[in-house]
Structures are given as C-alpha cells and as structure tokens.
C-alpha cells in the first residue's frame, strides 16, 4: 500500500498538504455556492425594481415571527458547530458529539418550521404551480415573488438537509474517535459549509421577510 500516515491519501505528501487541499477545496466550493445563490438574488433585485409594490405586498404574506425564529435557530446552530470543532481541537469527544447532534437537531427544527410555513402558504394558496389563487391587479407580479421565494428557500432548505446529513455523519465519526487534535479536517470543512448555509439565510431573511414591512 503506501507508507503514508493513516489519514493521508496516497496522492499527498503529508497531512499538512492534505489539510490545505481540503480546506481550499471547500472554500472554492463555497465560492460557487455564492454564485448559485447570487443568480437568485440578482433575479429578485431586478424583479423587485420593476414591481416594488407587488413585492412589498407579497412579502407581507410571509411570517415574520417564524422567519425570525428560524434566523435565531440557524445563528445558534452556527455557534454550536463552532464549539464542537473547538472541543475536538482541544481533544474532547463526548461534548463535541453532543454539540454536533445538537446542531443537526437545530437544522431539523429549522426545516420543520419551514415545512410549517410552506403548509400555511399552501392553505393560503400562494404556491405557484401547485396551488395559487391570488387574484387582483398584482396577481401575476406577486407570483414572481412567491416563485423566487420558493426557489430560494427551497434551494436553501436543500442545503440545510445536506448539512444535517453531513453533521450526523461527523457526529458519528467523532463519537468513534476518528478525529483528534492532530486530524480533524473533515469536521472543520463541514463546519465551514454549515456557516455558509447560515450566511445565505442572513440574506434571505431581510430580502423576503422584511422588505414589505420597512
């Protein structure tokens, strides 16, 4: 096989090189993610400039309280995952496992609340393509808002779901003592990803929930 250290893949010279590669890789990946969401935000901005009133009135359909709650949950979860990484760096294991599971649970709660919001929208019939019964002068333009709202939050929720799976995997690996102060790159990289999910939400929240209420 190879004479490498146990965690180092054969194409790398040493663990430091592998860690650099993994971290840079994640940053590069996050850059592409920013551009993915960037398109949606750009589309949102353009449509909102064309239809300021429709967007303001449609955004009043969103639930500010639940949105605020979701924001708080995600911010907390970013904090807990950071604590988990720190704990592993200091040699901890049980606390870190717990924190990772906690983060994943926060992610799930976020998804649950979101599901609840979607259900409400369904009852209010403002889901384009599925159940949409808005009428009135702005119906078509409000539909643009809801469409973008669903694409953006849906795409974000997809990221959260992936994140939850990743976090649970990391929790399991931490529990099995796969990481320690010397080697924890996958954990760090996963935390980075989770932070991005959080940051994207920090843009989604004011754009979609708060514009109409300013």
């Amino acid at each position, binding site marked *: 096989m190879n004479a490498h250290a146990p965690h180092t893949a054969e194409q790398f010279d040493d663990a430091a090189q592998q860690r650099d590669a993994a971290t840079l890789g994640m940053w590069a990946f996050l850059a592409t993610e920013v551009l993915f969401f960037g398109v949606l935000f750009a589309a949102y901005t353009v449509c909102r400039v064309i*239809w300021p*009133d429709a967007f303001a009135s449609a955004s009043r359909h969103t639930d500010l309280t639940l949105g605020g709650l979701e924001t708080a949950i995600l911010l907390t979860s970013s904090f807990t995952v950071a604590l988990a990484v720190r704990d592993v760096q200091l040699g901890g294991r049980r606390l870190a496992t717990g924190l990772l599971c906690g983060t994943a649970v926060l992610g799930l709660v976020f998804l649950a609340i979101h599901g609840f919001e979607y259900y409400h929208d369904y009852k209010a019939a403002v889901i384009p393509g599925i159940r949409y019964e808005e009428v009135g002068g702005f119906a078509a*333009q409000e539909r643009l808002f809801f469409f973008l709202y669903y694409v953006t939050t849906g795409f974000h929720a997809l990221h959260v779901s992936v994140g939850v799976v990743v976090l649970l995997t990391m929790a399991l690996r931490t529990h099995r003592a796969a990481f320690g102060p010397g080697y924890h790159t996958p954990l760090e990289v996963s935390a980075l990803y989770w932070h991005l999910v959080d940051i994207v939400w920090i843009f989604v929240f004011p754009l979609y929930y708060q514009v109409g209420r300013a």
Partner: protein
Amino acid sequence: MNFLPEASGFAPRIDGLFYAMLGLSALVVVAVFTTMLVFAIRFRRGRNVDRSGESHRDLGIELTWTLIPFALFVGIFAWSIRLWIDMRTPPGDATTIHVVGKQWMWEFEHLDGQREIDTLHLATGQPVRLVMISQDVIHDVSIPAFRVKQDVLPGRYTQMWFTPTRPGTYNLFCAEYCGTDHSRMGGAVIVQTPQDHARWLASHATGSLAEQGRALFTRYGCAGCHDARSSVHAPRLDGLYGSTVPLADGRQVLADERYLHDSITLPGSEVAAGYAPVMPSYKDRIDEADILALVAYLKVRGTDRETPHASR
C-alpha cells in the same frame, strides 16, 4: 461590399469605419505574418545562423506592443461611439412608423393609417423612426442595405431610425431567431422618391392611425370611464402625452409611448395619484396593433392635432 448597396444615410459612414478597421487589421495581419515567415525561414532548423544571446524578455518591447494596440483600440472605439450615438438619437423631424412583429410576420403602420404586411414603403430623404414591439417572442428588424438592425421585444417598445437615400427594393430580414419560420419572416423595403411615395400613401389612405384609435377608444369601452361625462372617477386623458404624471406611490413619470402602452396593458403597475386602481388590464384583449392605434390616438387627444386634416 460587393452586392450590398449603401441605401441609407448611415451606410457610407458605417462602411467607412468598416473599411478602416479592415485596413488596420490587414496591416496587423500582414506585419505579423511577414515577421513570422521571415523568422521561420531565417531560423529554421539546420541552418547555420547566429542564435546566441538571451532575448526572451524586454520590458520596453512588451510595453510598446501593449500600449500601441491599446491606443489604436481607443481610437477605433471613439470613432465607433460617435456613430453609435448618432444611430441611437433620432432627429426631431423623423416620421414615426409603428412596427409589430409576431410569429412570423411584420406589420407596419404609417401615421396616416396605411397598414402593410412584410413590405415597407419609404421615401428618400425622409428620416424615419421605427417604433417597434413584438406580440410574442423576440424578433429583430434588419435591413442590411441600410446597415441597421434592432431587436423587437415583447412588452416593451424599442426604436431605431435612419434616412433612406436611394430608391430601390431591399431585403428585410428578421435577424433574431424566433422559431420555425424565422428564415421566412421578412420581405422587402421599397424606397421611393418623395413624389412616388406621396402618391403611394394617398392611394392607400384609410383613416389615420389616430382616427382608428379614436374608434377603438369607444369600441373597447375606454370612453365609458375616461369620457368627461362618465360617472367613473378616471383621469381625463386630454393632452396627457408628454406631461409628467404623479403616481400613487409618490413617483413621477413622463407620459411617453411606453407609459401609455403600459397603462393599457398593466394599469396596476403605475397608478395615477388620486385614482383607485380600478382600470382593468387589456393585455390579453387587445392586440399590439390596436394598442398602437390607441396610443397614437391618446398622443393627439385634446391637442390641436386631434381633428383630422389639421396641420401635420
């Protein structure tokens, strides 16, 4: 260009720039190819020539061939931009012709109401402004002999202008891909002398576009609300065109062709201050050609040009 006539005021100017670019490019190409050829022959393998000396970098040379092309580029750019701005700025005395594009035909409407399909009659020496809109997808009016081209968008007016200079019949193309019969969507532009053109206009006279619009204004029920005697609280439209309209959301807009068009198709988007947004949207009920007639009518309503045969 060998079989394409220069039939508009722009054509010689554009060709002038074209040939200047061509000359410059030819110069660069010949210079680079000659240098390559000379080097290739002089330094080909097996030939006994002096190859000594490091010559693989020289800041002076690099800067020279960075800055000289750059300066040339700026020159070309400046030349092209002057022309471009002229091409985008129609003169005040241009006659307006309305154009509606739809899959796969062109409709032209002259101010005096003459309508044509896939053929456009123009007079030499008369600047023309085309105001264009599409009923479905994006099209593009292209008249190569005039060296002009402009996309025609749904839901928004675009314009272009030119002055035909030479009588003749020229190709008219749709130059933006628009589906099955894109390559058949076109016809002819027929440029006549002013006398012939006047005769043509006279023999094809119908009511003027504005008059047709006035009839439509009643037919579509606009008068029911906008007439002075109406009981609905709706704005009077006399002399609206060209004025500044305060909107309910506090903005001010210029009542231009775009505004009039959108007031009919999307009344909810810009609501005049002081009125309830009760006007229905006519988007799917009136086709673009009729909207053009309505707009033409609204442009003269309440002005001294309203009555036909008055000054034009």
